[in-house]
C-alpha cells in the first residue's frame, strides 16, 4: 500500500496535522461497516480532517479492490457501497499497529 495520490485537503491543512494515505484511510473508514463514496469522504474528513478528492478516492478504491482488501456490494439506487474483506481487516490491523508503534516511538523522542 502506498500513498501516492494527491488529496484535496480541508482548510486546516497548513498545520500539517493531517494524515493522507488514501488506501489506508479508505480501509479505516470501512472498518466499522460498508459505505458508499460520499459516506467514505465524510467519514474520513471527520476522522482525520482530510478531504479526499473524487479521483483520489476512486483510485484508492480500484487499487484496494484489485488487492482483494475491499469488495463491492449490491448497488443501492445510484450508490455503490463497498465493504472491507477479511484480508483487508488483517492488513489494516497490521498497518495501524505499525503506525501506533511508530507514533509511540516518535512521541517518546519528542518528550525526551
Amino acid at each position, binding site marked *: 500500500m502506498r500513498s*501516492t495520490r494527491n*488529496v484535496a485537503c480541508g482548510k486546516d491543512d497548513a498545520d500539517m496535522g493531517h494524515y493522507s494515505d488514501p488506501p489506508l484511510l479508505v480501509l479505516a473508514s470501512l472498518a466499522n461497516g460498508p459505505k458508499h463514496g460520499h459516506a467514505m469522504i465524510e467519514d474520513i474528513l471527520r476522522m482525520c480532517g482530510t478531504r479526499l478528492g*473524487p479521483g483520489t478516492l476512486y483510485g484508492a478504491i*480500484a487499487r484496494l479492490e484489485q488487492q482483494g482488501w475491499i469488495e463491492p456490494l449490491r448497488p443501492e439506487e445510484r450508490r455503490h457501497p463497498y465493504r472491507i474483506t477479511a484480508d483487508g481487516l488483517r492488513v489494516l490491523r497490521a498497518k495501524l499497529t505499525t503506525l501506533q508503534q511508530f507514533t509511540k516511538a516518535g512521541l517518546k523522542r519528542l518528550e525526551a
Partner: protein
Amino acid sequence: MNPMLAHLLMRLYPRLWRERYGAEFEAFLQTNHGGLRASVNVVWSALYEHIFPTRRGTMEQDSHSFLSRSVRAPWAMFGVAPIILLSIAYFVACLYLWSGWRIFLPGADTPFVRIGGPIFGLANIYFQAGKFYYFGAPILVGWAIELIAARQRVKFVWLTIGLVLTAWLGSTAHIHASRTAVHRGLGHISMGFTLGSSIQSVYESIFHALTILSLTVLPYLIFRLQRARSICT
C-alpha cells in the same frame, strides 16, 4: 457536478478502467459538490491511471504488448523509437510543406517566404501551422517517451538517452528546398541533420537542443515533484 462535465471527466480514464468503474464513477461525480479543485483532482487521477494503470482481471496489461517489450528491450524503445517517430513526423512535415508550396506558391522558387510577403490569409495560416508542427514534433515525441518511461518505470538513463537523442535530432534537422534540382521544375524538398558550418550555427543548434530538452523534461519534473509532495503530506 454538471452531468456533461462528469461524463467528460470520466472519459479521461483508460478504457479498461472505465469498463469497470465508469458508470459508477460518473454517478458519483454527478452527486459530488466539487468545483474546480475536484475537477483538477479527477484530471490528475485520470492521468495517473494512464501512467500507472490498475491491474486486475481484464485490466491486466498484456505481457506481450508493445509497452511490455519496451522493458525487456529499452534500447529499442529509447534508442530506435525516437529516430523512427521523428523520421515519420519530419516526412509528414516535408510532405505538408511541399503541398503548400504547390498549392499556394506555384511560381515561387522556395516555400520559405517572409510573413507579410507574398502569402496572406489561408496560405499564411497553412504555413504557420506547418511551422508549429515542425518545431513541436520533437517535443511531442519527447513527451511520448516520458510517458512510456514513467509508465514502465524504466531506468532514468534510458529516458535520458531517448530525450537527448530526440533533442539532438530536433536541433540539427534542416529542410532544404530547391526548384531547379528536379526535372519539369516541380520542386524538391530534402532534409539534413548537421550542426552547421559556422560557430554561430553550432551555438544555435546547441541552444535549440537545450530548449527542446527543457520543454520535454518540464512535465516529467512537475510530475515527479507532485508525486514527491503527495508522498510527504
